[in-house]
């Protein structure tokens, strides 16, 4: 009966291809049809702002250190009110591998991955993004988070002046 099985097997395949002929193709025809990436899709990197509109980045170099391909570079500076920021901040997207380690390393949630994947370009120099290209007027994924409301010793608020802090105790009062 193997002959019969072989013949049946041969013709079953015809039925399968015929059925597939009338099914909808799974192709997404890219420039015309675009699929929406998931919110946590890792594509173009952005620098976000806190709810007050200030830059979140404190130029701590952690992202730059975490980056496996060394595509992030910056120069730190201090503003007059004592807030740290980046004098310049540069991401070379021709090198970036979109691994997301910089976003994980960032202590202030400043650097984040966005789902905007259409940054391909004919000139590689157009892919070197400066700080003003990277900054967006939004808080990104954790909109309410404001680093200086929780940390940053005595920079924005006086020491211990944040909502979730208590003022420093006077050590001399505590003497027995």
């Amino acid at each position, binding site marked *: 009966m193997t002959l019969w099985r072989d013949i049946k097997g041969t013709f079953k*395949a015809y039925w*399968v*291809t015929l059925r597939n*002929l*009338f*099914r*909808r*193709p*799974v*192709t997404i025809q890219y420039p015309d049809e675009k699929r929406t990436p998931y919110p946590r899709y890792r594509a173009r990197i952005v620098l976000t702002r806190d709810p007050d509109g200030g830059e979140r980045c404190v130029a701590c170099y952690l992202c730059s250190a975490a980056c496996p391909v060394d595509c992030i570079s910056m120069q730190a500076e201090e503003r007059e009110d004592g807030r740290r920021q980046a004098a310049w901040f540069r991401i070379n997207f021709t090198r970036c591998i979109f691994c997301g380690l910089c976003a994980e390393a960032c202590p202030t949630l400043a650097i984040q991955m966005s789902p905007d994947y259409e940054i391909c370009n004919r000139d590689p120099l157009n892919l070197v993004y400066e700080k003003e290209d990277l900054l967006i007027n939004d808080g990104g994924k954790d909109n309410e988070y404001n680093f200086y409301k929780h940390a940053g010793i005595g920079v924005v608020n006086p020491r211990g002046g944040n909502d979730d802090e208590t003022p420093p105790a006077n050590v001399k009062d505590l003497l027995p």
Partner: protein
Amino acid sequence: MTDFLIDLALILVKIGLVFFILLTGAAYMVLAERKLLGRMQLRYGPNRVGPFGLLQPLADAIKLVAKEDFIPSHGDKVLFFVAPGIAAVTALLTFAVVPFGPPITLFGREVPLVICDLNIGVLYFLGLSSLAVYGVTLGGWASNSKYALLGSIRALAQLISYELSMGLSIVPVVLMARSFSLTEIVNAQAGIPFALKNPLAFVIFLISVFAESKRIPFDMPEAENEIVAGFHTEYSGMRFGLFFVGEYINVIILSSMVTIFFLGGWHGPLLPPIVWFFAKVMLISFCFIWTRGTLPRLRYDQLMHFGWKLLVPLALANVIITGAVLLWLNG
């Protein structure tokens, strides 16, 4: 004198028309194949050039003509030039004997819808399909490449083996029609097509024709994942294009042969004869594409075993049985 001129003009118009339709048909066969294969694999296939990708054959032709014409060093230059021509011309010439409709009346004379109604049309077809082997073999030989040579050796062995079973499966048709002329064979099927009268011969012929066209599942001569592209590995540009077009013209020719020998040619109810003929040819051509989308490639020894140990004996037995039955019925 004017009679002669009108005759000549009619013949030339007929040849031009057939030539044009055949070449355009072959070009669009490529498109149809790519689209259908794509849909079978849940893709769209070419749909960028023109509406529904209908201008794709044109774009392909421009691409082929514009490509570099590469000639391998140490190859046989003359044969290398001639081989693609043989492949394409033998395919084209076969269509000379294909009757695609009953005779029509034009300018007060009867015009047969066939370029040349040879009384040995069947032999002409078999002879040209044997000649077509030369194109493939010489092309592979002249390329001075091991893949091309392997491909052409395979093609040679395969085509010769399957020509045998193909020829033998036509013998019952000739016996039943009592003629070698393709027009007579079609006319003999006015009632019942031979595919119903002799289904075994039909199946053998269909399989042999698939092997004859060197397409999946019998595409050993150009098995991509074993010998690169087989006999046309070294060909590029329009020379490759000739092999390519020749293959698709061959598909159309072989489909028309299946139609003529077994499906009753232009005979059919209601619709005009030419429409019936084209519909049947399209159906068989679709079967070619469908098979390509469905079956995997046979192994070389399986191919040879299948041809020599199964198809040829079956076809031989079929010839004897058909002959005996015809003798008993008419005797």
